């Protein structure tokens, strides 16, 4: 009987539910019918792109887009929108302040699982679903944190002012304990407790102890102190600075990496550089010995540190010279392995031949304090106030720091922990340097490995930068800058525009990677071909500085080989790529410096990135001059374009007018003379040079190579491989020598048809001339 009653009861409940459900299903059927009708009302019709697209924003923040194809189509009203729909969405470009597709993807792993790298789908999802579902689309929509209390720390009127915000309505404690810790400390020990406040206190004033100190709030829980706030470092150390050097006015963005081994100061001078980047090797400049006469003693925070006197004096000389030439100097802090400094490295970082540089262990007192002293010493020494105005303008904290394995070795560690360590190191450098000179800039350097997934030894540049930025924001925003080593890819192929494909690997075997350097926001590599991806990325709201401005960017370590197993000797291609990459940097308003990485070829490298004594040297020297575009017009032919706007949409020749540049004619004369001198001086083989000179003994250069005669070039039989027929070039009765007087660049020389060869002057010859030959099919 009871069972029967239960059945009846269940049936009644079920019936009531089913009446409700019937109503729901009826409404659902009507809704589904309505939504299946095309264009019934704006919201149910076409996609509403205004949620993700704002024309003005798109054009302002994506200057690299090429709209020509859309502008030529009369049926298209808004070429920018068509570009966005057809290309921009696929590349993950941000087209509205209201929708940051990168952030949207990062915030929702369910979308990432579903859509993967298909960026277009994220826009469509937001338009069709995400917006309606109330998903967050911009950083400003989201509240950072995770702590009960938010904490910031800044200096005001010679005091540290801590500002506390309540992130939750209810905090289970009345008293808040303020701890002041050294940068390397994490333990909430009693001696670090500086004040106890009521939980409603919003602001606290403390005395300044150390500029790299950090602060944290805690309550007393069951097991002792429990942290209830983020850690806060002082985020405006510059207000304590007694010195603010005036900024060096640069003529251009052109710069080069200074290598101590080069010992070729005059070459640096002749290149008319605006920027120089040099390496400050920790172990070379610091000394463990305190023997007087050999060291310079420096007291910092009550401790004495010793610097290698001879090395510092060498630097003094360089800085004096650079100051004289108005060159902006950037210094990279690098740490090589030296047993005498074993406490400087992380415990898990075991010395290895494969490791170039080691991370400085700032989680220990020795590393943190020594680094601070090191930075303070040099920033103070080169603050532009001495008689010779020696000035260090920028610090770069490490090299390719997203590569834990070889250039910032810390031992195997997950990205989050790694970034926490690096961010501390960065902050020590930043705060220390800013106190010495408020105008100094501090950069975080990343490699060109951008979109790769992170493991415990190597981190994708994008993932690293995201994590680094988050860490810095949480602990107190700083004005950091970004340096990127935008090396070409593959290294044996100097051409810029084919960085996204590999036709031949270094071993000669075909490889399969494609689109490694594309325009997509998470492209695997950043090279100078797609450097706009990087600058676009830091245009995003989360990466803007405190004033809402885009951060400073340096492109550095750039190198193009002049000798390749694909092209053989390819000095002309190297020169062309340098010009192309430089123009890209010069025209990109977000990039402040272009640092070419190599003056000379490195002895132990299989690539010939150096420019010294090569055609590239001449080109490098003049490429930032106002007449450069005309005099280097042959570069366009080498890379097969008619106009620079074809490859750099925002190329604007008028921007060169601001430069105090070398006259081209003069520069070429100087180049030729210089190169001749160097050849004699450097080669040490005067007989060879003498022989070359004999051939041309009646000739006094420079000569325009377009005046030479070219003997007719024989037709070539089609083989499916490159045809390189012999070219005989004469001037009067003198036969010119390949690689000495000229360089050959073959174009379209594989398939049947008309092929082109360009003869480009070297040394005593300048300019270029082209000739043709035919590739014929074998009968």
């Amino acid at each position, binding site marked *: 009987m009871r069972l*029967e009653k239960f*059945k*009846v009861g269940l*049936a*009644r409940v*079920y*019936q009531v*539910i*089913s*009446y409700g*459900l*019937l109503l*729901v*299903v*009826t*409404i*659902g*059927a*009507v*809704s*589904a*019918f*309505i*939504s*299946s*009708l*095309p264009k019934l*009302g704006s*919201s*149910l019709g076409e996609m509403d792109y205004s949620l993700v697209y704002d024309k003005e924003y798109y054009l302002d923040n994506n200057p690299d887009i090429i709209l020509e194809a859309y502008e030529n189509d009369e049926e298209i009203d808004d070429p920018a929108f068509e570009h966005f729909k057809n290309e921009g969405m696929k590349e993950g470009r941000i087209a509205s302040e209201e929708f940051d597709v990168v952030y949207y993807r990062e915030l929702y*792993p*369910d*979308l990432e*699982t*579903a*859509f*993967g*790298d298909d960026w*277009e*789908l994220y826009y*469509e*999802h937001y*338009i*069709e*679903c995400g917006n*309606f*579902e*109330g*998903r967050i689309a911009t950083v400003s929509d989201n509240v950072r944190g995770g702590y009960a209390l938010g904490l910031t720390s800044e200096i005001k009127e010679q005091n540290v002012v801590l500002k506390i915000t309540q992130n939750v309505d209810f905090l289970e404690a009345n008293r808040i304990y303020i701890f002041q810790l050294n940068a390397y400390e994490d333990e909430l020990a009693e001696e670090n407790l500086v004040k106890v406040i009521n939980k409603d206190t919003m602001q606290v004033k403390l005395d300044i102890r150390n500029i790299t100190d950090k602060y944290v709030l805690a309550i007393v829980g069951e097991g002792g102190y429990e942290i209830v706030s983020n850690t806060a470092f002082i985020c405006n150390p510059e207000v304590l600075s007694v010195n603010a050097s005036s900024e060096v006015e640069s003529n251009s963005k052109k710069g080069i990496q200074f290598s101590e081994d080069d010992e070729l100061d005059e070459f640096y001078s002749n290149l008319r550089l605006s920027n120089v980047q040099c390496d400050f090797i920790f172990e070379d400049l610091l000394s463990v010995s305190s023997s007087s006469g050999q060291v310079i003693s420096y007291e910092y925070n009550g401790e004495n540190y010793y610097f290698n006197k001879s090395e510092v004096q060498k630097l003094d000389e360089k800085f004096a010279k650079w100051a004289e030439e108005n060159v902006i100097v950037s210094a990279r802090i690098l740490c090589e392995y030296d047993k005498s400094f074993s406490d400087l490295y992380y415990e898990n970082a075991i010395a290895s031949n494969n490791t170039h540089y080691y991370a400085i262990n700032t989680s220990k007192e020795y590393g943190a304090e020594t680094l601070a002293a090191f930075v303070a010493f040099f920033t103070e020494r080169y603050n532009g106030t001495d008689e010779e105005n020696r000035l260090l303008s920028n610090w770069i904290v490490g090299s390719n720091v997203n590569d834990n394995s070889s250039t910032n070795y810390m031992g195997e560690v997950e990205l989050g922990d790694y970034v926490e360590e690096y961010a501390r190191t960065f902050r020590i450098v930043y705060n220390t340097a800013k106190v010495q000179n408020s105008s100094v800039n501090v950069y975080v350097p990343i490699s060109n490995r951008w979109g790769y*997934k992170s493991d415990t030894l190597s981190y994708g540049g994008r993932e690293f930068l995201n994590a680094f930025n988050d860490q810095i924001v949480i602990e107190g925003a700083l004005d950091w800058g970004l340096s990127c080593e935008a090396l070409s890819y593959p290294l044996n192929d100097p051409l810029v525009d084919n960085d996204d494909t590999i036709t031949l690997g270094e071993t000669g075997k075909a490889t*399969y*990677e*494609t689109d490694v350097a594309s325009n997509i926001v998470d492209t695997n590599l950043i090279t100078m071909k797609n450097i706009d991806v990087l600058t676009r990325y830091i245009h995003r709201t989360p990466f803007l500085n405190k004033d809402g401005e885009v951060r400073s960017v340096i492109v550095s370590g750039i190198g193009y080989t002049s000798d390749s197993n694909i092209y053989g000797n390819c000095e002309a291609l190297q020169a062309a790529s340098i010009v192309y990459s430089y123009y890209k940097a010069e025209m990109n308003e977000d990039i402040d410096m272009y640092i070419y990485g190599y003056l000379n070829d490195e002895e132990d490298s299989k690539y010939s990135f150096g420019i010294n004594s090569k055609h590239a040297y001449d080109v490098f020297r003049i490429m930032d001059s106002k007449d450069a575009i005309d005099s280097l017009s042959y570069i366009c032919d080498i890379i097969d374009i008619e106009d620079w706007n074809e490859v750099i949409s925002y190329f604007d020749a008028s921007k060169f007018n601001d430069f105090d540049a070398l006259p081209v004619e003069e520069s070429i004369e100087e180049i030729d003379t210089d190169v001749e001198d160097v050849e004699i001086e450097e080669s040490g083989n005067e007989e060879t040079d003498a022989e070359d000179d004999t051939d041309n003994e009646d000739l006094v250069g420079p000569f325009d190579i377009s005046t030479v005669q070219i003997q007719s070039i024989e037709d070539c039989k089609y083989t499916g491989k490159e045809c390189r027929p012999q070219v005989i070039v004469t001037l009067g009765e003198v036969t010119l020598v390949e690689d000495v007087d000229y360089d050959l660049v073959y174009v379209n020389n594989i398939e049947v048809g008309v092929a082109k060869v360009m003869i480009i002057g070297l040394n005593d010859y300048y300019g270029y001339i082209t000739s043709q030959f035919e590739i014929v099919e074998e009968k």
Partner: protein
Amino acid sequence: MKYMIEKMKKFTTCDWVCVFLMGGLLLSVAYLFYTRGNGWSNFLFWNQNDTGMDFFHSIEYVRGRVPYEKFQTLYPPLANLLFYVIFCFVPSWQYASWPNSFSESIGTRGTTIDLRYWQPTMMIFILFIMATAVALYILFQRYIKKYKTSKLVSIGLMLSFGMINAYERGNIIIFVLLFILIFIEYKDSENKVISELALISLAIAAGLKIYPAVFGVLLIYDKQYKKAFRTIIYGVIAFVAPFLAFKEGLGGIFTFLKVFAAYSEVPSFSCQGLSADKLMNTIAYTVNNIFGPVIPEGTLMNIATIVNIGAAIFLLLAGFFVKKRWEKVLVCTMTVLIYQTQYVYILIMLIIPLLIILQDEERINKSNAMVIVGIMITQVLLPLDFNYFTVFNKQYGRLQLGVFILLGYIILKTNQNISSFLREEKKGKGDIKHAIGKI
């Protein structure tokens, strides 16, 4: 006209289905002709990089026989075993340079190490699809052979909306459909061996995709508890035993469950799917668009899991209150459909109740018309834009309409049967059995 009407009055259910399917097919072909093939681009994945995605990648993930730990695959071990057998036909030089992780393998689509790039693997794919399609055609025929239009309807079903998408994805759901159809057709066979094989067939289907296990409830509806018990045993064997074929061994069970749980935690990605939460989403979307923001944004995202589980439980219980064989099968199919958002190939599951309606009811009547219309709305290939690749598109409207109609039928029917039972109860004569027996 009169002649036509007279003729139509004599139409069987199969004839009507034939009209729907063939009509849609002809319209679609005409549309493709008119657009010179461009219509495809609004229907299919847009290039070959995605052809047979579920097939090719599944083959790749069984290389090395560590599918769960290494590639976090979601397929149960029996499915992976099937793919491993197929993998044994793939020349070694094709897979030698394949990457070692799920995410990297996605990145190789369209490159020369993509299995699709090579003819031998593409032929394996084509043969797999062909063999399964032929087997399905034979089974369809077996279900509806009594009708003159059976061949046309079978062809129409082979080219229906969900089927085209299933071919393109190379999803083993077409293989699973085969086993479920065998189960339903032969589970009540008088020949004990065949009947037992039918149970094993369901166990295999569940071993390949898990959710076909829902069809086992049919045995409970019919009070065939012993058979249900044996099916569970077969199912457990079909699920556990194949783990031994992989290097992960039985420990792989936990890895698989972990991967499965992690996947289930991720909310489904589209507001336009066929699961219960997505159906609710469509209602909320339309209501908000017409009446302003009545339903707060984000509400449904938070209750999606509850909605889906609730709807599935409701449907499974509804199976106890319906009488006809096709109604019970429909209940099981709808449970599979609305429990979790899946790609549109899941619609081919609706072919099962359709075939049973055709088998059991020769004429259209008030009862089955609503269901046939509902199923046809979801099955007919129509020349409407369906950008499959984006998953958000207007054609989902018509698919959801079909699903709502089918749900409506189940609720209506259940309601009627319960009302009838309660009336009987009031008269003091009834119990559930009696009431349902009377209806």
